């Protein structure tokens, strides 16, 4: 539901971000098929409401940590999609000069600290950023995104314990898309909701419909307030669905087609569009223009990436240490 506090201009901006992520990832998928992108590519199509819902309420100096499926988080933080696409394509103009790739993106100027290729790998790191923020006493906080698969990693539990003990301003955003890599959650754990673990450690936790942008924003607004008032940490579990396989090229035979069709109806972008129209906050033309604009920006980003030079071999020895 659109809440009274949401300003129309802000909502349209949020909607724009969602489309930017969707268009970016659809384009990345095509480029991957054309082998312009190497390695593994994990897409978050269908999970845009979580990234945008959470990040749209943050300050520029908050810390955001992603996982391996994090293009959306970086874009939601305001990352430059030209540099992002260039990074995916391994170009010198990419965010990491081509050294990181899809799983290791960084967009420091936006607050997006890092992604990781290790499941659960950034959770302890976010703890550190929250620790630093708490020391500074300036209301900064850290948000870390991770999937349900990370819930079975020991580092996740160690981090919850420490965050709770030291009351760190950290928001743990679990994107529970029901699949850890290739297997359903039920094959990985008897625990149905990962929020249960947070409660065990005395952390306030809630579970929301992660495909409902407004619900995510509402829960995140509360969590952010708590952290800024030094009453953190908070755990937010967003139930969502990734519409693609684990990585591009994953035949995803482990999923039922009917399931996918059901989830398509729950497409977070479609739902926001519906709400905006219903409230008459935007016309169909305006909404369509947003999509078109996003796609045009992404085309431009792809053009930028593919015409950028590959890094020179001498780059190898640079930036290994400060």
């Amino acid at each position: 539901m659109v809440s009274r506090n949401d300003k129309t201009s802000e909502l349209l901006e949020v909607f724009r971000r969602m489309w930017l992520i969707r268009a970016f990832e659809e384009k990345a998928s095509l480029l991957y098929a054309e082998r312009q992108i190497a390695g593994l590519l994990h897409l978050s199509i269908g999970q845009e409401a979580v990234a945008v819902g959470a990040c749209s309420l943050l300050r520029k100096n908050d810390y955001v940590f992603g996982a391996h499926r994090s293009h959306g988080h970086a874009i939601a933080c305001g990352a430059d999609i030209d540099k992002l696409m260039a990074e995916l394509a391994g170009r010198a103009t990419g965010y990491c000069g081509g050294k990181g790739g899809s799983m290791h993106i960084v967009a420091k100027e936006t607050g997006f600290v890092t992604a990781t290729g290790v499941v659960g790998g950034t959770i302890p790191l976010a703890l550190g950023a929250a620790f630093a923020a708490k020391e500074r006493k300036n209301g900064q906080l850290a948000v870390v995104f991770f999937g349900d698969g990370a819930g079975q990693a020991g580092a996740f539990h160690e981090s919850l314990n420490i965050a709770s003990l030291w009351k760190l301003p950290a928001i743990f955003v679990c994107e529970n898309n029901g699949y850890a890599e290739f297997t359903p959650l039920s094959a990985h754990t008897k625990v149905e909701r990962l929020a249960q673990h947070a409660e065990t450690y005395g952390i306030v936790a809630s579970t929301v419909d992660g495909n409902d942008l407004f619900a995510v924003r509402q829960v995140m607004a509360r969590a952010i307030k708590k952290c800024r008032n030094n009453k953190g940490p908070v755990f937010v579990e967003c139930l969502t669905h990734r519409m693609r396989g684990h990585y591009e090229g994953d035949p995803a035979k482990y999923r039922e087609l009917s399931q996918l069709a059901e989830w398509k109806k729950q497409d977070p972008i479609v739902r926001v569009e519906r709400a905006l129209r219903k409230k008459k906050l935007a016309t169909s033309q305006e909404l369509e223009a947003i999509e078109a604009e996003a796609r045009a920006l992404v085309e431009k980003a792809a053009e930028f990436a593919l015409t950028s030079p590959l890094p020179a071999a001498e780059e190898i020895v640079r930036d290994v240490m400060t």
Partner: protein
Amino acid sequence: MRELAYYEAKFEALDEIMAADQRVHLINGTFLSLSPHRHVFQNLKQKYGERIVAPPISELGFCGLATGAAMAGLRPIVDLSTGSFIYEAWPQVANEAANAFSMSGGQTRVPVVFHLFHGLRGGGAAQHSGSPQGMLWNCPGLEIAIPSSPRDVKGLLKSAVASDNPTIFVDHTRLLDIRGEVPENDKPIPFGVADIKRTGRDVTVVATSYTVQVALGAAATLAQEGIEVEVVDPRTLVPFDLATILKSVEKTHRVVIADETHQSCGVAAEIAARISESGFDKLTAPIRRVSTLDVPVPYSPPLEAHIGPSEERISNAVRATLA
């Protein structure tokens, strides 16, 4: 003789091992990484489903589970898939499995196999391209097998499972499609026996894993220049067959070591030290190492290609020893 793809030989081995020994369980993975041949794993699953489990993303937990199961008489093969992920399980592998037999005064046997894919794989970047075998060689108590051909992967996997020690089975995704001779009913390949993959009189190239294939490519190029390279593949790092290498050095007097671990304290460093300790008088040129450059593995394709032990780098090193 019969020819098989590397992945076919590997699966033939797994199939035969599982058929022959009820104690063998497969913990995690597909043993084929994300290769397009993943479907062949389904055949194993159909035949031995009860002895194959797909655990959660808990490397620390399931490597411990496999180690404990080995202590209790099973012979588990754990698939860590990406080699770098063994760092998540380090406490159980390096501090429990490796030490148990010694700490118990030779009582507790740990016949577990930790299987992983190491090395540069194309876009793996810094966290999916690790070659942890150098670090693992620094943990006494672990055996390390590192095949480079279809015949070796089959024979070594059988010996790894038969071993009463914890064994690291170091594989490489770029080997999966290589074809080679694999005799039917081939015998297991004993650990600690190096294999001469190509004979030559001028320079000995000691290479491991996929780098053996790279070295063979370099040898073919160099042959056109009239340089005859002998490619020696130790096949296991622990135990290590120094004798075969020294015999080759006696003939060539020159050594290049090509390997994909990072250079410092890496596999090539240890092999070089052993050769110079025992065969210094046989050398007429300094030993040269062609290792992965000492930088975190970069993502971008030209950078990744630049740091690895390429044909070009191996050829240059060989030429340098003759200069």
